[in-house]
């Protein structure tokens, strides 16, 4: 066990995966000598060499497109897209190619690859270093989408994603890259994909969050507890495929739920969660579902703390839902 932050835990996951399997390759901009702009890959080029850690030219199409080719031909590429905001030049490759190879070859070919990318606001990065585009990928049949909130889950989920036979987009909450530290095993381990985690159990309201906003949801739940409202907080961990059972059974118990995410509200993943839970737990609901999300605008700079669904906006939502 070593006390690690998210950056260190993800690095440890990459290192262990590369030690275990020679076919695991890294690709990305500035990931070599510099170790990536967030230093996640620091020291990996030194340990594994420049032919397993490709410090690529500036092209997300090139990174994701060639990673697909490598995955088709026996390797296990893990790409880093420097910021989620810059994934779009590779969007065609992800949506039309990575996501569809298995289907269009009747299962003969598939693309076992991971695309890691830091996402979200809170680093004073303005509209191009703050986006949360997870819904675009959840909407794409064939892609899995993972978003850990803490170092232990991050390493375990990443190692599992690398072993997974389908393409996985791995969103890393950069707002808390260095803010959370916990004991993480040095050796390899797995956290299975597709399992949410109840991080605080409660009886009156279910609050669903992931990534950096999990901490806001948790702190809002503590505040609500002080005002007599007992909140259950669920960390989704894997966004798709969704752990529907954990969510439904929580909402059947509480009868009320609040979804929190950074992405804009309209067609955000919250919309799908509201639909799924309303369809499945309708007769248990005591209050209309609530979404606390980023506003439907591009991500701002000066007022990013008013844009983000931080605890100050979650608390009133929890209290109102509980008292509806």
């Amino acid at each position, binding site marked *: 066990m070593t006390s690690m932050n998210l950056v260190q835990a993800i690095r440890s996951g990459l290192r262990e995966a590369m030690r275990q399997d020679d076919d695991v390759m890294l690709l990305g901009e500035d990931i070599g000598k510099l170790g990536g702009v967030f230093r996640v890959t620091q020291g990996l080029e030194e340990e594994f060499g420049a032919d397993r850690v490709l410090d690529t030219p500036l092209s997300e199409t090139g990174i994701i497109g060639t990673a697909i080719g490598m995955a088709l031909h026996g390797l296990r590429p893990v790409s880093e897209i420097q910021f989620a905001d810059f994934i779009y*030049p590779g969007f065609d490759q992800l949506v039309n190619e990575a996501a569809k190879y298995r289907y269009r070859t009747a299962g003969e070919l598939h693309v076992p690859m991971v695309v890691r990318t830091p996402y979200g606001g809170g680093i004073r990065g303005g509209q191009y270093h703050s986006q949360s585009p997870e819904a675009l990928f959840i909407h794409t049949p064939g892609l899995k989408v993972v978003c850990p909130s803490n170092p232990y889950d991050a390493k375990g989920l990443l190692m599992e994603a690398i072993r997974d036979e389908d393409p996985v987009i791995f969103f890393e909450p950069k707002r808390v890259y260095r803010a959370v530290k916990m004991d993480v095993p040095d050796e390899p381990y797995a956290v299975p994909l597709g399992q949410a985690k109840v991080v605080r159990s409660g009886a009156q309201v279910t609050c669903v969050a992931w990534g950096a906003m999990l901490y806001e949801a948790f702190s809002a739940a503590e505040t609500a507890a002080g005002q007599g409202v007992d909140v259950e907080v669920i960390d989704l961990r894997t966004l798709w495929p969704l752990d529907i059972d954990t969510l439904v059974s929580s909402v059947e118990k509480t009868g009320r739920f609040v979804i929190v995410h950074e992405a804009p509200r309209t067609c955000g993943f919250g919309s799908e969660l509201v639909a799924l839970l309303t369809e499945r737990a309708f007769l248990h609901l005591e209050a209309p579902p609530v979404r606390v999300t980023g506003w439907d605008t591009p991500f701002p700079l000066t007022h990013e703390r008013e844009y983000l669904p931080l605890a100050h906006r979650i608390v009133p939502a929890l209290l109102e839902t509980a008292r509806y």
Partner: protein
Amino acid sequence: MHINRADGTLDPSLDPGLSIDQLVSLYKAMVRTRVVDDRLERLQRQGRIAFHVGSMGEEAAIIGAAAALRDHDWIVPCYREVGALLWRGYPLQRYIDHMYGNAGDPVRGRQMPDHTFSREHRYLAVSAPIGTQIPHAVGMAMAAKKRGLDECVGVFFGDGATSSNDFHAAMNFAAVYQAPVLFLCRNNGYAISLPAERQTAVPRLSEKGAAYGVPALRVDGNDVLAVWKSVREGVRRATEGDGPTFVELATYRLGGHSTSDDPRAYRGDDEVERWRKADPLRRLRAHIERRDAWSEAMDADWRAACESEVRECVQRAEETPAAELGDLFTDVYAEPPWHLREQRAQCLDGPRAEGEEHEP
């Protein structure tokens, strides 16, 4: 191409014949940009602004190209070219207000520092995604041609951008449609940490223009006269109907990629020291001093004047209130639809956040 020699003499066969007043103005603009850069870097280190991306070492490439374009020609920037905007007379106060994202910021605190815009100065809005502006410049040039305007467009981008999809699409369209556009490729040696020779396997990026049928040349980007002359020739070609030109401005990024970068992780001090000797400011200064149009005392005075100008702007920017919260919701569409009116009300009537964000 190489005109301004290190000792301050000029190659007489290539000298474009700028007046001494023009040369002194260019030098003063380059120094002013350097002083502003320096101050902003310190402000970021003190946590007073979020970020800065500077142009130390690239002033000749940026300001020389801006000076060779005509004032009504659009400049389509990457993000390192504020020197070109200041050259066109953009008020320094407005730029510093932008750096603070305060109520004086023309882009209303929406963009990261150094992502500004001025329609009045024909300087297009900076976008962080690399390469995306290059086809816009081509389209604007196609529009100018279609509308019969006596205009061309100068688009800046780095060596890294020549790997982007958009770069290739732009080259191809520009050549096919003979758009009056100048591709101003600041080859400053690095894309963050990746050296240019690992970005692209051809040694001259200008070949990437030539491959598409865009006449291309490579010039010493630290030689303001060579930059001016080659860009002015591109302007002539564009306005006479000869289509696009690609100018590779070979230069060097003396500072980090931005204030978030620590270049010691990927390059040695000796390399930087070598390039310091080729500092574009030094060379132009040597020339104007040689012609007795500049002196040590004038240099010190000018730097001091620039420094106090920046200091005053910073002070005013810090006294100016933050950009309006309600502005978060404007300009998404021409008219805010129901959902944005509703969200605006929710936000303004809702609870306020406490505290400040910090770098991760």
